């Protein structure tokens, strides 16, 4: 059995140029290539669950089900050599599975559900009766840690470490709470984007049917950190009191900033760094007083960052300060560093001076359970809170994140392609056939995806379909009755 397995894997694992002296089968070299990917697609990608999700209950037998629904969803494949195929659609789960296994896309993106099968779009003009247009699309958010490069000093670009990853945790907490408590959404999936960020999929029926203006309203509600590399003041909090959303978010921001971030980023121990903070204070007398204090290099008993932040807060918020703008600076600074930075497209609508739109209905976002293809060295910062030794660092799976326990999420422990393949090879003798996904390191992710997200979602979809159908039947019988 071992040899048979070895035979199989050897075929799958042909690596350019490595003929003789290849490593024993149970050690998969690190990296990402299309052969490994094929094995992943054959053994690990959860086709049935993805199909069930994307069908939103329409794959059932109830007369209210729309059998065309899944086939009207756009997928896009990015193949090797950056070949990009849009407007892919599939009529059922087998179709989807066949296509993915055959093409082995490096990336799969999910787009909207259109009025008709996207493959047939050219048959439809732009005239009113028969139009090809998006009709449903999840509300999505895309948060990328490289958008925080101006405020993190431990890493840059695609790198992430345990000091800066918690920025993502803060973003998840604030946005997830707002989506549930304020907007009343229930079916929300957070996914690790595979390298340096998180994606959020809001899948309630109401969310999928929001128009662009309504999406803009939600995004604007959440948009507090505004500004680009040229503006100094990126957060302005006006008003005598905070809107409840801002107040609630301020608590999350404050706790993280004061207890973790000032320390992990040494915001006040380096002159360049604290100058950037002093720039945000509109009162010259305060900034020069602080500068003076901080020239003093004497050692303090407590962490210097904590001490100096305390001094700054005291001066800005002391009873002497009458100007709200000055008192508010404390929160504005904290928000500037740690409030979620949403990926947005900006455009100008005359009625409200700046309306920002998350993504229009048209946009495509990477599918969960894809593998991130970019290789990158795992960053080992000198002061990481817990150094993780991991030989498998490339090809991470885009796994779900539980927002209720998002502080515990550690990107460096996310299963990688090579680890999964190793697990595949290490299966005990005689256990051929399909791998039981629950027993792999992806097991926990599958379980969470199914029980916490998919099942409640499908239950709710079933109810919606049944209710909508019943209402329709009622309506037509009403109109006949007179």
């Amino acid at each position, binding site marked *: 059995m071992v040899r048979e397995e070895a035979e199989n894997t050897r075929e799958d694992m042909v690596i350019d140029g490595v003929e003789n002296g290849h490593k024993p089968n149970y050690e998969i070299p690190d990296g990402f290539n299309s052969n490994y990917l094929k094995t992943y697609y054959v053994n690990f990608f959860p086709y049935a669950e993805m199909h069930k999700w994307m069908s939103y209950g329409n794959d059932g037998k109830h007369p209210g089900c729309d059998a065309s629904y899944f086939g009207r969803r756009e997928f896009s494949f990015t193949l090797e050599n950056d070949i990009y195929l849009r407007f892919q659609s599939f009529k059922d789960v087998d179709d989807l599975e066949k296509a993915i296994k055959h093409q082995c896309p490096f990336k799969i993106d999910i787009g909207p559900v259109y009025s008709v099968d996207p493959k047939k779009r050219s048959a439809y003009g*732009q005239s*009113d009766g028969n139009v090809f247009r998006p009709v449903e699309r999840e509300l999505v958010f895309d948060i990328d840690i490289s958008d925080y490069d101006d405020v993190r000093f431990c890493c840059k670009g695609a790198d992430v470490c345990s000091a800066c990853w918690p920025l993502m945790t803060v973003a998840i907490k604030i946005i997830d709470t707002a989506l549930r*408590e*304020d*907007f*009343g*959404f229930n079916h929300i999936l957070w996914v690790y984007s595979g390298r340096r960020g998180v994606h959020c999929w809001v899948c309630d029926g*109401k969310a999928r049917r*929001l128009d662009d*203006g*309504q999406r*803009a*309203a*939600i995004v*604007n*509600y959440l948009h507090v950190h505004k500004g680009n590399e040229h503006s100094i003041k990126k957060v302005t909090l*006006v*008003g*005598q*009191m*905070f*809107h*409840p*959303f*801002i*107040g609630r978010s301020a608590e999350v921001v404050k706790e993280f900033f004061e207890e973790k971030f000032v320390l992990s980023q040494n915001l006040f121990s380096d002159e360049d760094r604290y100058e950037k903070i002093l720039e945000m204070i509109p009162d010259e007398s305060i900034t020069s007083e602080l500068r003076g204090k901080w020239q003093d290099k004497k050692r303090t008993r407590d962490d210097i960052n904590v001490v100096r932040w305390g001094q700054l807060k005291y001066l800005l918020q002391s009873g002497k300060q009458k100007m709200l703008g000055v008192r508010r600076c404390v929160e504005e600074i904290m928000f500037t560093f740690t409030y979620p930075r949403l990926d947005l497209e900006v455009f*100008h609508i*005359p*009625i*409200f*001076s700046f*309306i920002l739109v998350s993504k229009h209905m048209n946009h495509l976002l990477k599918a969960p359970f894809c593998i991130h293809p970019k290789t990158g060295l795992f960053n080992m910062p000198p002061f990481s809170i817990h150094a993780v030794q991991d030989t498998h660092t490339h090809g991470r799976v885009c796994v779900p994140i539980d927002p209720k326990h998002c502080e515990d999420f550690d990107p460096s422990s996310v299963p990688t392609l090579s680890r999964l393949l190793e697990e595949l090879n290490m299966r005990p003798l005689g256990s051929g056939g399909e791998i039981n996904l629950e027993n792999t390191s992806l097991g926990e992710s599958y379980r969470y995806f199914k029980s916490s997200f998919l099942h409640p979602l499908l239950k709710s979809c079933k109810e919606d379909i049944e209710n909508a159908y019943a209402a329709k039947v009622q309506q037509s019988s009403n109109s006949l009755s007179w």
Partner: protein
Amino acid sequence: MEIIGSRRKSFLSPASDAAPTIPIYRSAPELEVRLEDFELYAVHRLRVLKGISDALSRGKKPNEMENVVKELLKVHMSHPEASQVMSKDIISHFVLRLVYCREEELRKWFLSMETTLFRYRFLLETSEAQIALMAEFDLPYKIITNAEYENLKDKLNKVARSMNSSADTIYYKAPFEKVPDLVARREVFIMKGYAYVARSQVVSLLVTHYRSHLSKALILTNRKWTSMIREQEKDRLTPIVEALSTSYLGPDYSQPKDFGEISLRDIDQIARSSFPLCMRYLFEKIKEDHHLKHGGRMQLGLFLKGVGLKLDDALAFWKSEFSKKVGAERFDKEYAYGIRHNYGKEGKRTDYTPYSCQKIISSTPGVGDHHGCPYRHLREENLRAALNNMGVANRALEDVMDKVRNKHYQLACTLTFEAVHGASCDQGINHPNQYYSDSKTILESRNNSKGT
């Protein structure tokens, strides 16, 4: 939608003594209207909508918009007979539905402007009128009970204080997506998908419903138009409707009056001080090349007629330039006719009217042409150079280029005007000759005040 024609039906009876309120255009009116008024009323309302469009693009704030709308209505939507004001309002709205239902872009624009118009008209109304209007809408949202209010009082108060105002006493509970503008600006408390809308904010709810209703109505109107009306009315209303969406609405400047004539002597200096960029550009090109192709000759030639250049002076001007390139004889043979034609002295003897901005913007200059609207047709670096020549630089230049990027060519020209003259031009530029006459007005008044 019925087509309003000269059927014998009664006029809308004058509204009762109640102060005029805003119609909400739920159904087509049973009204009689003369064919001339069909077009005229629509044109007047269109002026209001275009005025709103202009004001919005210039970034006018909400409190300024209230005044803008009030003025526009006063100027364009009044009627000598008070009882006819409401009819005019209703008729003009339904005529414009026909005009603007025909394409997605037109619908979007119309919807946006009519919704804005409604919003500010509502805000201008008295409290009683507002309450009456709300009743007409018959919204399905309930006012929250005292118990609910007590529970939420603290949060509602925080929202009010975040806007530096105080909490209202009446709140409606509506799904959040019904008040997207309030949600976007965090001016409302939301919980579990519901927004708690203060009585003072109710206009947002009404606007959403108004918009939604009008949007559906436009689709229906379009269907009726394409399936039935357009063909039925092809000799009567259809040509009017089709022309209305692209019409220029200002004076036609074919008969220059106010500033008398200009003489050839002055033309260079006048071009520098008072010509809009499109004409300055053509003027400079003809000085440079001693020639202009047909499009340029028409655009500049008619403009010059509009500013008061007499035929003889015009002939002298064109001849002096062209003969440097093609010779006097050839000018007389090939080009003089065209100029006389423009002045109505040849051929059909129609007095041609100078081109409006709309016409100029939509022209299609080719290689070797210099006509058209430079804000649209010139490449960025050439446009910047031309504006620099006019004395527009730095901040002002960037503002102009910003409008250009957003395809607001007439606004770009307006900003240029404002930069060059150091004065504001509130109604915006719609016609090159208007630019010229506005410029002359400002310069003359400065001369006069200097003189005294």
